[in-house]
């Protein structure tokens, strides 16, 4: 059975296959619950479009839902972040989170020498233990404000114990 949409849950919308593998790695962490990974949305603009067309109505309908938009910033953090901030309705800002690598997932993979799935598992482990871990890596550290907000909002959903 997929996540129970009437209970607190989180959906990840990955930009592409590489982000999907990172998200699946997170999902594979032994303690993670109430999480589902949607199909890749074909680029950051595809994530934005999917969010606006599919996720906004979904989140309005299912108040217990949260969404993580997993994109590549391609070294355009501010511009891309601004576009998403403008697109996220005010009443959903505390339930929608935008995370992603500074450049591309490949750059992070090369830097760490680990496959995407392993990276996802390690990010989940850091969230589970509430430590910085990989999140402070050069390619991920810019996510910190969102990560703090995200952890406050979803830690008990993802790791109910």
């Amino acid at each position: 059975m997929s996540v129970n949409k009437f209970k607190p849950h989180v959906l990840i919308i990955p930009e592409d296959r590489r982000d999907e593998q990172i998200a699946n790695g997170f999902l594979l962490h032994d303690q993670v619950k109430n999480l589902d990974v949607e199909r890749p949305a074909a680029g950051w603009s595809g994530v934005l479009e999917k969010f606006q067309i599919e996720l906004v109505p979904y989140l309005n309908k299912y108040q217990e839902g949260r969404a993580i938009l997993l994109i590549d910033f391609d070294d355009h953090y501010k511009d891309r972040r601004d576009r998403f901030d403008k697109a996220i309705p005010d009443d959903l800002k505390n339930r929608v989170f935008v995370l992603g690598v500074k450049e591309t997932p490949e750059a992070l993979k090369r830097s760490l020498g680990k496959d995407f799935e392993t990276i996802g598992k390690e990010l989940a482990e850091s969230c589970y233990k509430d430590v910085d871990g990989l999140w402070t890596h050069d390619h991920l550290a810019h996510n910190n404000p969102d990560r703090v907000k995200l952890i406050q909002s979803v830690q008990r959903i993802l790791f109910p114990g």
Partner: protein
Amino acid sequence: MRFEITVALSGKRYVYAISFDWPENFREARILDESLSVDGKSVFTRQQAQIQIGTGATFRLDWHVFALPVIDEKPPERTIRDLTNFLGSLVLTAPVPANMTGFSEEASSELDEDASNFASCLRNLLETDYSLITTFTDYIKTIIPDFSSIKNVDRGKDGKQLMVTFKRPDSQEGFTLEFDALSDGQKSFFLSGYIVTSNAAGRPIVCMWDEPDNHLSISEVGQFVIGLRKMANRSGQFIATSHHPETIRKFSDETTIVLTRKSQVDPTLPKPLKEIDYHGDLIDALIREEVSG
């Protein structure tokens, strides 16, 4: 027809291979050749009836009889026994839920390929250690929230019948029915519960499941596969063969092997997905046959 398996056990690399042909006027296939090597060193080789042991000794064997379970070693050498024990512990399943009944005449430790003796296997597991019912029940509740309990009740002289109870999580309202009345998808969930519980119970299981997504609704496939992958991350191994996009997506490029054959008469060839260059979405690339071995 040729089969080959490479296994890493206790830091050693085992390669076992066997091939068959079926000559005209033969009632059954015969073994053409068979071999086992460990870390590149030959343990035995075979050409039709002629067997040669690694030490140089030779003997003959009926060409319909496998050499692997026949050959034994002087203790404390356990090379062949370790491999045969491992092969014996493999769970190979292509379940046919319609054949899975809840009735068992006796307990069984070996799951049939079509899982038709599921009830006998679950009976064996719980007779060995009834406390495992908690592991089984907890796992099923994660995928069927209104599942309450499963019980074996006496039926006939030695028989047992599995009865399944469902209740709403927030009330006592519910009902009990025979396992046989469950849907094909529900039976698949219970089979996965048996595998997860067996794996947690003792020796790690290597489970090869052909088309685990059969009989499931599209919304159930992803979590079902992730549940089995999580089990294998704790111990054991889970290998799935699938054509289902939602199953394929739940594996990484590093854990996916693409099986391709160019025509019906060519052999099926495996190639790791990570060695295949494809662009964009994996499923789209599979559909346009950009991903092949």
